[in-house]
């Protein structure tokens, strides 16, 4: 039942993007996420499309895998588009039927929302497709290190995150096993009303909870018996180092988004069509 669920979507390869430092990738992703909000015209989105294509090519991940990530937010996209089409008011009425009014502005706005949201997801998925969850955690820990000065337990948080990540596959296996065991006892998860189905999950959830606690306890014992004592004096097995790839990648991304900022940044981001003129379309 859960065999097909892969957590994280890391796509193994040794491309340019894969070899970049996880910290750099994380920061560049942030730049991208902020940058994309400055883009307000379809021409701008065309440039972003080009940018994404270059990034995908450099990461050597099949485009199909990248697009798959959008599937997860399809429902959200659909909802946003529908709401924007029907509820945006403007000057150019296209359709009027009963209480439904569709304006040209609504269509344009919905289209842009669609592009913006899906590009947000696609951009981030390039990060997660090319970086293992463990590297991401390390990157986060390394980037947040300054916060230890104000007593934020960064190392502990990072450890919690990586433990949680490493437990997910075994939890999935465990769930699978328990489901099989209860099915063998005649449990039925596929028929009946909503309440009956919800109730059918009790025999899975309770053993799962019990075993998670057991696992956590065993892990704590194992760590204690190997003298784990938190962040003090710990070093990393793999030290993250910057290379020419990181400088090249950063330069490309920064140049691109500086250009984006120069073109769009001076405008009111969410301005009206008149204010933006040709930039709007």
């Amino acid at each position, binding site marked *: 039942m859960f065999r097909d669920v892969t957590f994280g979507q890391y796509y193994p390869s040794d491309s340019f993007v894969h070899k970049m430092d996880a910290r750099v990738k994380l920061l560049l992703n942030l730049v991208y996420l902020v940058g994309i909000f400055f883009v307000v015209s379809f021409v701008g989105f065309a440039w972003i499309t080009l940018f994404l294509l270059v990034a995908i090519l450099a990461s050597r991940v099949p485009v199909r895998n990248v697009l798959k990530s959008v599937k997860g937010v399809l429902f959200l996209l659909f909802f946003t588009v529908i709401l924007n089409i029907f509820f945006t008011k403007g000057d150019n009425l296209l359709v009027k039927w009963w209480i439904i009014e569709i304006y040209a502005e609504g269509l344009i706005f919905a289209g842009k929302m669609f592009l913006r949201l899906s590009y947000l997801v696609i951009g981030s998925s390039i990060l997660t497709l090319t970086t293992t969850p463990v590297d991401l955690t390390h990157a986060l820990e390394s980037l947040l290190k300054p916060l230890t000065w104000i007593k934020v337990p960064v190392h502990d948080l990072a450890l919690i995150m990586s433990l949680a990540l490493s437990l997910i596959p075994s939890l999935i296996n465990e769930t699978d096993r328990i489901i099989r065991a209860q099915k*063998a006892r005649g449990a039925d998860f596929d028929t009946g009303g909503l309440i009956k189905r919800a109730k059918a999950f009790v*025999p899975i959830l309770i053993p799962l909870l019990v075993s998670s606690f057991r696992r956590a306890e065993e892990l704590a014992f194992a760590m204690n018996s190997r003298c784990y004592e938190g962040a003090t004096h710990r070093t990393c097995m793999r030290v993250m180092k910057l290379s020419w790839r990181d400088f090249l990648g950063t330069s490309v991304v920064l140049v691109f988004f500086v250009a984006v900022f120069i073109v769009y940044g001076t405008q009111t981001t969410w301005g009206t069509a008149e204010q933006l003129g040709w930039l709007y379309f």
Partner: protein
Amino acid sequence: MSIVAQQLNYIYNKGTPFEKHALCDVNVEIGDGEFVAIVGHTGSGKTTFVQHLNALIRLQSGQLKVGDIDLTEKKTDLKKLRGMVGMVFQYPEYQLFADTVEADIAFGPKNIGIDGEKIADIVRESLDLVGMSESVLKKSPFDLSGGEKRRVALAGVLAMQPRILVLDEPTAGLDPQGKREILSLVKKLNRERGITVIMVSHDMNEVFENVDRVIVFREGKVVHDLPPRDLFRMEEDIVNMNLEIPYVAQFLNSLEKHGITFDEDIRTVDQAFEAVNGLKGGK
């Protein structure tokens, strides 16, 4: 209840780069009331095979009949099948979930639609069968010891009154005393109630002592299907498959090399001792 499997094939992740051929043309026939062990290295396909028996894994290709149920057909009466084939997984105690032992044992029979009034009796009977007293009925299963939990879990499967019992390493992680208890219980179910028992095991001593027939899986294929004595005579073959030779079989094999054979069916150290003693007296 007999089991007939013909040309069973199963491929995991079919059509992806992760494709794995777990079963290759498996032909197995298991008769009513047999006590069979299934052995093999990890990943040899034995678990995949046994999970076919109660349709936890659906048939991909080949034919499979369990009792009068034909699993080749699209529509199978799953409730009937799962009532007929009881399956005890590895570490079954980890599947306990109910507030009380009583409710947990009743879960299976309730699911397969046994009458409410009958269930209370069945629960008591099953508990008695696994050698536990009724005083635990109202206890939480989580308050029991490891061995007790396992027996309650076993009772939960027995309460479905299966005619075929499939056990996946039933003694894993138990102490010697617990192992003996579980095995003698399984033996009793087989001998006295005529339940067909299929036991997956890694412990060859356990296999040698208890079963009538051993089916050896290797890379998805059935490579041997023999009585234990005949199987463990092939020492080289067994070692090649990363299996061990039971102590008693080793002893008998070396005696045989010196031309000493016995007519009786020797399974345990005690029986071997008796037999050797008899030999001395005779000479």
